[in-house]
Each structure stands twice: as structure tokens, then as C-alpha cells.
């Protein structure tokens, strides 16, 4: 490949990794607090459709993005109510949100299918840095602002998680809710807030797709990205910074499957990222046992005071 093709691949991989990163960051925080959210796909797709409709109706892409975030948060509120307050099965609750979200988004987006977005989000080119040879065109030219905000957010979340008191509280709630409760932390409230935050992030990831990356709405346009975000969470070992690398990796896979279409049947390339997800999870499992790589101890277990 020519050099500029390589840098172009990197640039597009970065753009493609952005929605995965946003959704994965949200999920990492939620799982760190001990709650699995299988509704990520549904929250993303709802964020995408609401974000698109609001942007199209108002001509304001950032307002659309705000609505995408709120939509994701509302869906997450349902999940957190069922999974945390009622203490029901989190897996089923999240799955129900995804089934519901895919259906509802198809329903409300039906009349908007195929319209190009009139005022999509614009590319940004970082002044100065874009002049750097190789790195400039690869990472700092013609990206969306959300890509950089996502990267900064990853750094912030990493810092919050490991070096601040709220981060400590969050991790304690996920590792040992009994201990957290004993020192006066309201486990359920912390978990709810984190899950809602996660939904917000998933909504933004979805909004990025329909407002910036592919400014249009198509039914099921998230195409399993929410599930890949869940895989990234594991692949990144619940660490926001590693999630950046993992997302980039998957972004590259998605983009390569576009790039190589002339050489291979496109359908077989499209299934590569999904296949690779399985391979990646297998590699992680082969590497170490569950405890050693830091899966939160109370992950997926509803907390009820007085039960062990």
C-alpha cells in the first residue's frame, strides 16, 4: 500500500472506532459498578434515530446529539430500574431493552429512512498537529470533534476511576457492594447513576453514527456495534485507556473490510470484525483466569441488603 493509503486507513479507522469507544467507555463504567448492560445496542440505535430526527428537524446537529444522549440515558433508566431497584435478571432486562430499542427505532424512524441529513456535523482539522508528517493526515485531519472528545473522556474516566474518591466508590460498589454498604455508600444509587451515564455514552455513540459519521438514518444502522462495545469492555479488561486501543483495533477491522472489497467478497469481509470479536475474547480467556484480569467481583449480581 502507498503511504497515503496507510494514513487514510488509520484516519478512517479512528473515525470508525469513535462510536465503539463512546459506548464501550459507558459500559466499562457500568460494569465497574457491577451492572452488565446488554441494552447498549438498543440505546445506541435509539440515540441514532432520535439524534437524527432532532438534527434534521432543527438543523442543529449538536442539539440532536444532546437528544441522543438523553435518549440513551432514559433507556438506561428503565434498565437500571428493573435491574437495580427491582433486582431482576440484568441480562434479560438489557436484552429486552435492545429488542425494544431496535423495534421502536424502526417504528419512529420509518419516515426518515434514506434522507441525507441537511446539516451534519462538520469535519475538524487540528491546526498545527495536522501539519506533522504521517501523524497529521492519519489522526488530525478531517475527523469529527467527537473523536477527540471521546479520547479525552477516556483519559478523564481513567483518572477518575483510579485516582479519585468517586472512582474508588464506584470500584468498591462493583467489587464488594457489602463493604460499600457497610461504610455508608448507597450502592443502588451509585449503580443507577453509573448505568444512566453509560446509557448517555451509548446514546452519543449512536448519535455520532447518524449525525456525523454517516449522516442519515437506516434501520438497525448500529449493526451490532453495541455488542462489539460489550466485547471491547472485556477485551480492554475494564480499563478506559485500553478501551481506546481496543476500539481503534475494531475500527480498523471495520474499515479494512470496506477497503478490501475489491479483492474479497464484501460479505465475507463484513463478518471479519464479528469473527475477530470471538477470537479476541478467546485470547483474553486463554491469557488469564477471570479473577486475574480484573473482572469486577460483583458483576451481574444484584445487590440486596442482608443477602450474601
Amino acid at each position, binding site marked *: 500500500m502507498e503511504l497515503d493509503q496507510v494514513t487514510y486507513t488509520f484516519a478512517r479507522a479512528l473515525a470508525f472506532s469513535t462510536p465503539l469507544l463512546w459506548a464501550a467507555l459507558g459500559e466499562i463504567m457500568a460494569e465497574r459498578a457491577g451492572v452488565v448492560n446488554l441494552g447498549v445496542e438498543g440505546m445506541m440505535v435509539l440515540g441514532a434515530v432520535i439524534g437524527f430526527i432532532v438534527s434534521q428537524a432543527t438543523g442543529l446537529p449538536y442539539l440532536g446529539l444532546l437528544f441522543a444522549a438523553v435518549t440513551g440515558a432514559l433507556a438506561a433508566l428503565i434498565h437500571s430500574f428493573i435491574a437495580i431497584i427491582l433486582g431482576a435478571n440484568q441480562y434479560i432486562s438489557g436484552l429486552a431493552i435492545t429488542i425494544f430499542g431496535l423495534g421502536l427505532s424502526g417504528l419512529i424512524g420509518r419516515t426518515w429512512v434514506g434522507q441525507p441529513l441537511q446539516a451534519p456535523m462538520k469535519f475538524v482539522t487540528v491546526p498545527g498537529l495536522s501539519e506533522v508528517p504521517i501523524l497529521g493526515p492519519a489522526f488530525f485531519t478531517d475527523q469529527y470533534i467527537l473523536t477527540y472528545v471521546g479520547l479525552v473522556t477516556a483519559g478523564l474516566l481513567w483518572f477518575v476511576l483510579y485516582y479519585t474518591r468517586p472512582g474508588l466508590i464506584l470500584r468498591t460498589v462493583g467489587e464488594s457492594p457489602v463493604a460499600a454498604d457497610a461504610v455508608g455508600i448507597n450502592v443502588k444509587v451509585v449503580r443507577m447513576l453509573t448505568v444512566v451515564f453509560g446509557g448517555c455514552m451509548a446514546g452519543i455513540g449512536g448519535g455520532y453514527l447518524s449525525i456525523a459519521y454517516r449522516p442519515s438514518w437506516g434501520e438497525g444502522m448500529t449493526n451490532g456495534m453495541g*455488542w462489539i462495545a460489550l466485547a471491547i469492555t472485556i477485551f480492554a479488561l475494564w480499563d478506559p485507556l485500553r478501551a481506546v486501543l481496543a476500539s481503534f483495533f475494531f475500527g480498523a477491522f471495520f474499515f479494512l473490510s470496506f477497503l478490501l472489497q475489491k479483492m474479497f467478497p464484501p460479505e465475507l469481509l463484513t*463478518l471479519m470484525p464479528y469473527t475477530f*470479536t470471538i477470537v479476541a475474547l*478467546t485470547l483474553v480467556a486463554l491469557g488469564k483466569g477471570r479473577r486475574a484480569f480484573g473482572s469486577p467481583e460483583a458483576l451481574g449480581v444484584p445487590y440486596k441488603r442482608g443477602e450474601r
Partner: protein
Amino acid sequence: MLERFGFKLVPRKAVPGYFVFLVSFGAIVAAIVVTGFIFWIYGVNPFAAYSTIVERTLLNSRGLSEVVRKSIPLLLAGVGLVLAFRAQFWNIGAEGQILAGAVGASGIALFVPLPPFVAIPAMFVAGFVAGALWGLVPAILKVRLGVNEIITTLMMNYIALYIVRWLINGPWKGDSVVGFSYSDMFHRSIWLPTIGNTRLHWPTLVLGLLLVVLLAVLITRTKLGFEIRMLGESPIAAKYSGVNVLFTTTMLIALSAGAAGLAGVGEVAGIHHRLVEPNSISLGFGYTAIIVAMLARGSPVAAVFTALFLGWVFASGDIMKVALGLPFQITGVINGLVLLFMISSEPLLRFRIARVSLKNPETAESETGTV
């Protein structure tokens, strides 16, 4: 909070069957009511809508046959999931296993010339094996390495979807079809027979009912069934009492996935008579089968009724589209709502509200039933 008003939640010891039924029924009614609001938002009178739906799905024979027809794949995949969920294997991959089964059957139908009385059983066998193999990958990864089966089974769905797309656009694309992506039509002699002029391919239905009986007997009457129940309730106890956990779980999941594969055979050999777009082979039957299994709460026999209910939802989707001008996606909304309400009503089965008594504070012994 309740204590303040002199009440508290007390874990239930045993839940009577009628109460489980009532709670599930309540969840379904709640979903139907909320859907009524969606009709109303769309400017359709919900009462008129539901009466149209009931009239066209339940009160005429053609509609009724469509309900049963749509519940066939749901029954096969759903009863398989009952088994998988019992063993605590969260198989979300029935959708892909259905597609794998469809591919297996199409392979036989398109490329292996056999007399019809051999070809039809061969299609079912191939579909079962293909579905089972599709389920075995995540199963082995789960039992050997502890890889999260929810994600792997889901990824296998997408992989199956794109393989089917590749087949119908590439190597298996029919010679006789121009501009469409299908395989060639299967030979007329190996189409599954149907009842009258309906689309009820009865061999698949019979297979589904046989499977229900088989699994009901297996779970309640055999040593393997006992092991399955033990695996689900206490894997460690199962291990120490000499259950070969790896082998048993793997075989169960293969059986579960094979059942979904059979559903795929029925769809291509009984309805489409060719390999078509993945989204036409399965209208999300694999995902809906999860709801079939959850509502059935571990009982293969109950899955017959829950499959019929969700088959009715799918049949209603067609009516809503044709008669009321509502998009088919509304079925996804109803399915999601049923599942949400069902899971939300779970605490009703685990706890009852009682007056606070001073004598007996420690009812903490958890009695969390299987979901």
C-alpha cells in the same frame, strides 16, 4: 421503606402454578395496553386495531393457520432455549443457529440429488447438525475457557447472517434468478408438505411437538435431566456428585442449537423453497425464541403455549402492516415490552407483602427461583 407503613417483603417459599401464570399473563396484558398507546399515537384507534387483529388472526382459519405457522420456528428454537437456559447457558444465538440450519438444508436440497423420501429427512438431519455445530463453537469456548457466551453467540448470529448473504450473492446464487439474491428454487418434490392450501408445513410442526415431549421426559424422568437441573441450580454440587459438567453442558447446547437449526430447515424447505435473504428466512425468530423460553419458565410444555402467543404477535404484525398501515417493526416493540414487563414482575413471584411482625425478623434465607 415499606416498613414505615407496617408492611414488609417476605420471600415466598413456594409459588403456586396459577400465580406464575397470572403474573405472566399480567405482563402480557400490560404490554398489549402500552402497545395500544402506540397505536393511538399513530392515529389508529387501539380498540378498533385490536378487534381487527383478533378478527383476522384468531377468528378465521387462514389467520389461525398463519399464527400456528409463525409459531413453528419459535417453538423449535424456544424449546431448545428452555434447555440451554436450564443449564445456565445464555444462548442468544438461536438466530444464527436457525440460519445455519437453513444453510444445511439448502446444501442438501440444491446439491445432493436424492429421492424425496430420503431428501426431506436428510434436510432435517443436515439442518440439525449445522445448527448444532453453530452452537458448539460458543459452547466449547464457554465450558473450556469461560468465554462469555452471550457475546460469542451474538457474534455467531452476525457471522451466520453474512455467510448466508455471501452464499446467495456468490457461490449459491441461482442461475435462473437475475437481479435478485436467492439460490435456485428447490425441486418441487422436496418441498415440505402443507395442510390444505395453508402454509402450515406440518412435518416441522410435528417435529417441534415431538421435541417438546422428548425434552419434557428428558428433564423430568431421566438421569440426564436430573443432571441438567443440578447443573442449573448448583454447578459445583453437580461437579462433585460426578456429573461430567463439560460433556453434559456441551451436549445440551448442541441439542438446543440443533433444535433451532430444525426451525431454519422448516423456513427454507416449507415456506421459501430456496435460500433467501437472512432477514426473510428469520424475522427475528431466534431473538423472539428467547422470550418464548423465558415466558415458559423452564417448562418445555409451556413453551408450546408461549410460542403460540408470540406466533400470534408475528401474525398480528402482518395484519397491522396490511390492514392498519403500521410498520412491522411494531412486533419488536411488543416483544421487548412483554420481556420488560415479565422481568419487572419477577419480584412478585419472589416476594409477598406481609404485615410486619415482631417475632420473626430473619427471613433472609434467599429463595431466588430460576428466572
